């Protein structure tokens, strides 16, 4: 069923058009997910497969988005790469080394900002350093710079409850960047925001990505958001979570609000949409 859903691009990573990184001569991928299966036991006692034999290689500095219906294991995938949970089968590698515990080279942004309500914006940004046990002083300037980068200058001492949802999510992005991780994992970070704020923050994220040059894995259920941001879109299906499509988004950068009116953009959205719906129908 996977092959039928992906007429243009094969689900097999080895024949993927955009830099597969599987061949021996290619540089080592930054993150590689190798045949990962993750099962959960539900409260009723039945076993559910959240991810089934997923293989994926992510190159350094790539902006990868993962789209799919809810329950397709996107979040599970992110938690696996973040080292929060371990695979039932298979292996996740970071820079070639097996990832068996959380790594400070990975930063996470969640759907909700989950800031500490008693801490100021600045203290929330510094929070990971406190958890890592790193000294604060050397990174103070960096924290202020990040806050300025997301347009929150002047709000350093504000409490989260004094900020809007969009501003809070900006703080949580700064928090993920403060310890300078190589990979930024984002799990539907803008899903709780209204459409306009969502678009605005998307472009802001691209600007930050351009400036800081990170590898970004961005999970979303919005196909147009996925295409707009990404170098590469991974399409997943639900139950069990599987990759059915892997598309290189060749649209020129920088992307602007006009990008979404281009024919290329529409074509990518159409291709991905048909894959998602074909999958949904076959279930």
């Amino acid at each position, binding site marked *: 069923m996977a092959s039928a859903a992906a007429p243009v691009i094969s689900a097999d990573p080895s024949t993927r058009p955009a830099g597969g990184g599987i061949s021996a001569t290619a540089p080592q991928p930054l993150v590689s997910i190798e045949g990962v299966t993750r099962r959960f036991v539900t409260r009723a006692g039945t076993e559910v497969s959240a991810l089934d034999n997923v293989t994926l290689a992510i190159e350094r500095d790539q902006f990868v988005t993962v789209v799919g219906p809810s329950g397709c294991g996107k979040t599970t995938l992110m938690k696996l790469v*973040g*080292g929060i949970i371990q695979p039932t089968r298979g292996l996740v590698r970071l820079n070639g080394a097996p990832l068996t515990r*959380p790594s400070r080279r990975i930063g996470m942004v969640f759907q909700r900002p*989950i800031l*500490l309500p*008693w801490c100021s914006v600045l203290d929330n940004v510094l*929070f990971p350093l*406190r958890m890592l046990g790193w000294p604060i002083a050397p990174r103070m300037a960096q924290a202020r710079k990040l806050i300025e980068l997301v347009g929150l200058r002047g709000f350093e001492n504000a409490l989260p409850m004094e900020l809007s949802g969009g501003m809070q999510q900006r703080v949580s992005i700064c928090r993920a960047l403060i310890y300078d991780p190589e990979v930024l994992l984002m799990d539907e970070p803008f899903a709780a925001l209204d459409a306009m704020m969502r678009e605005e923050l998307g472009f802001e994220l691209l600007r930050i990505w351009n400036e800081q040059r990170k590898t970004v894995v961005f999970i979303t259920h919005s196909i147009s958001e996925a295409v707009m941001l990404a170098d590469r879109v991974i399409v997943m299906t639900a139950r069990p979570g599987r990759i059915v499509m892997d598309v290189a988004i060749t649209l020129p950068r920088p992307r602007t609000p006009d990008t979404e009116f281009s024919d290329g953009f529409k074509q990518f959205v159409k291709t991905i949409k048909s894959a998602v719906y074909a999958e949904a129908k076959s279930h």
Partner: protein
Amino acid sequence: MKPLLRRTLAEYARGALAVVAILVAWEVLCRVFAIPKWLFPAPSRIVEETWAIRGVLPMHFAATLSTVLGGFALAVVAGIPIAVLVVYSPFLRRVIFPFLLTLQSVPKVALAPLLLLWVGYGQFSNIIIAATVAFFPIVINTATGLESVDKELLELTTSLDAGTARVFWRVRLPWALPYIFSSFKVAITLAVIGAVVAEFVGSDKGLGYLILTSSGAMKTSVMFGVLVLLSLLGIASFYAVAWIERRLCPWYMPTGAETQAT
């Protein structure tokens, strides 16, 4: 801001007016129907006879106050660590909870003579009795607060490979503070009850003792006066805790304050 202030003042004035009206009605009824003072004394009588024992009142008041504060402090010092143990160790949870429930379901008045036997007569046993009455909500609420931390926030700390102690001091404990303080507000009023119970059972001073002896001597007016003092003590200590809460948890707005702000 200004209209709000005016409204608040108006509300206070209305409250005060209601109290005065009730007192006046009470006084009038007592006089008109000539209700005997040992049965239901008029406010003027209460003030008069309570004022007559003003020499010993401060001592009794201080005794009860120190029992309340001591019992509350002991409940906090015992309750919070127990809550932490219960949250972090499923084994201890299984061991401790049945004990706590048993202790909670035993009436403390019934427990008081036993404590007197063990600890001896005096302030210390009073403090222990007040503490046993006050500490249950502290344990329950603190445990609930420590466990209510946002799951994703904990995942974030996991992704940073943070140690248990760091997560406790920097995340769990501050997160639980509003829960802890709301239990403190319950506990401090329970400590007042516990102190009076202790003074009823075995003591030679305190407001509870005063009520007991006045009742024996049919001095109903003094009983009323002491009751007023007791409730003042309870209210004052409640607001003291609420004041500290506002200082320590400014990010947390109790629902009452929220409705007032709108």
